């Protein structure tokens, strides 16, 4: 196995300019330690694919605060005025994507599918520049798969084989992102022995996880 990695080393794997899928929804289920360490190490020019940018000081908002983001694919930035400022100032290139389409595009990338045929966004500004497919008389919008160099995911528990589970709405985009990052780095609130998460309760099999962030000496989060 040997997948345990120090927080500093995990963040150091990620170069300036990398693309990152980051789990979480308004800071719930976001890999807070990894995000914080990327900020501390001063990473720049990142492409972030994530549902939202939470608020200043919270979750992915911390990467926005730090000016670390050059490109953003997301469904919503309305809760973060700093993101909006940086978009208007041209510092961040923004692609807005309906939330269900965003999830499905990431799933397509992780599952080896060529695209997503969705009714969502048809005939709206979201459809601009995209192909429309007619199938048996019904129109569908073709959205393309979204993968990234890295997926950063936050689990509730990880066992020694990196099997992950999630708690309540903190699951959100994490499992699907764990399938679509070329390298997958997970952090977990608890690390538990093999068997504590029974086979039927595993949501992300350890085979998908490349690195699991070590506990600190003080076992802090």
């Amino acid at each position, binding site marked *: 196995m040997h997948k345990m990695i120090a927080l500093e080393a995990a963040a150091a794997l990620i170069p300036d300019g990398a693309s990152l899928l980051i789990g979480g*929804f308004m800071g719930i289920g976001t890999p807070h330690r990894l995000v914080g360490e990327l900020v501390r190490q001063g990473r720049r020019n990142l492409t972030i694919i994530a549902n939202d940018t939470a608020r200043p000081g919270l979750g992915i908002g911390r990467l926005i605060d730090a000016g670390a983001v050059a490109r953003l694919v997301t469904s919503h930035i*309305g809760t973060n005025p700093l993101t909006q400022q940086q978009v208007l100032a041209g510092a961040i290139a923004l692609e807005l994507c309906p939330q269900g389409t965003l999830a499905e595009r990431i799933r397509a990338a992780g599952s080896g599918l060529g695209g997503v045929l969705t009714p969502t*966004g048809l005939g709206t500004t979201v459809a601009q520049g995209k192909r429309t497919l007619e199938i048996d008389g019904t129109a569908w919008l073709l959205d393309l798969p979204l993968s990234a160099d890295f997926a950063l995911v936050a689990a509730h528990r990880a066992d020694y084989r990196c099997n992950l589970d*999630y*708690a309540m*709405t903190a699951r959100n985009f994490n499992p699907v992102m764990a399938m679509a990052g070329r390298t997958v780095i997970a952090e977990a609130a608890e690390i538990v022995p093999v068997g504590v998460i029974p086979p039927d309760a595993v949501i992300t099999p350890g085979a998908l996880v490349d690195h699991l962030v070590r506990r600190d000496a003080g076992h802090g989060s």
Partner: protein
Amino acid sequence: MEAKELIARRIARELPDGALVNLGIGLPTLVSQYLPPGLDISFQTENGLIGVEPLPEEGAEDEYLSDAGGRFIGAVPGAASFDSCFSFGLIRGGHLDVTVLGGLQVDERGQLANWMVPGRMIPGMGGAMDLATGARRVIVAMTHAARGEAKIVRRCTLPLTSLRRVDLVVTDMAVIQPTAHGLELRERAPGVSVEAIVAATEARLIVGAQVPEMALAG
């Protein structure tokens, strides 16, 4: 009665027993406060839960459990959690009986604009486009006009949320049902005349001989 409460109490009567319902952020969320007793209604939040309930008391926050606006919530017994793909599979796949969404404009085709005001800020559509497209029944909850401007218009001037015709619009003045023939005025708010509604509406309204007053839940 405040406009928001009126709208919420009217919409509460639209939720059938056994329904799976998604309430948008803001005004639509109020609907759950006025449900008629004895109904078994499940609330979904698109960030991954069926079985939303308000946080039972201050201090009971679970750091892993919020609604789509990021506010801490509770969960009923028998709740179920799931990931974002599954959640939008429910929404897009027609498994959601009703969604209640806020609105900026609804037009004579029954089309909704509710996610963006060009030139002002770009909040993003979040789950609104999927909800407006996929739910079996879409109910719009909004004030009839804003800053003197009609919100029920001939053609939406703001970017559309979906091509799909919404099923019902409930405002502080009226209940309007978009149909293939246009917007049918179904009910008036208590004390509001048909003439006042028509005057506050840019769109043509189809007005029948009888336009009863709204009945309110709660």
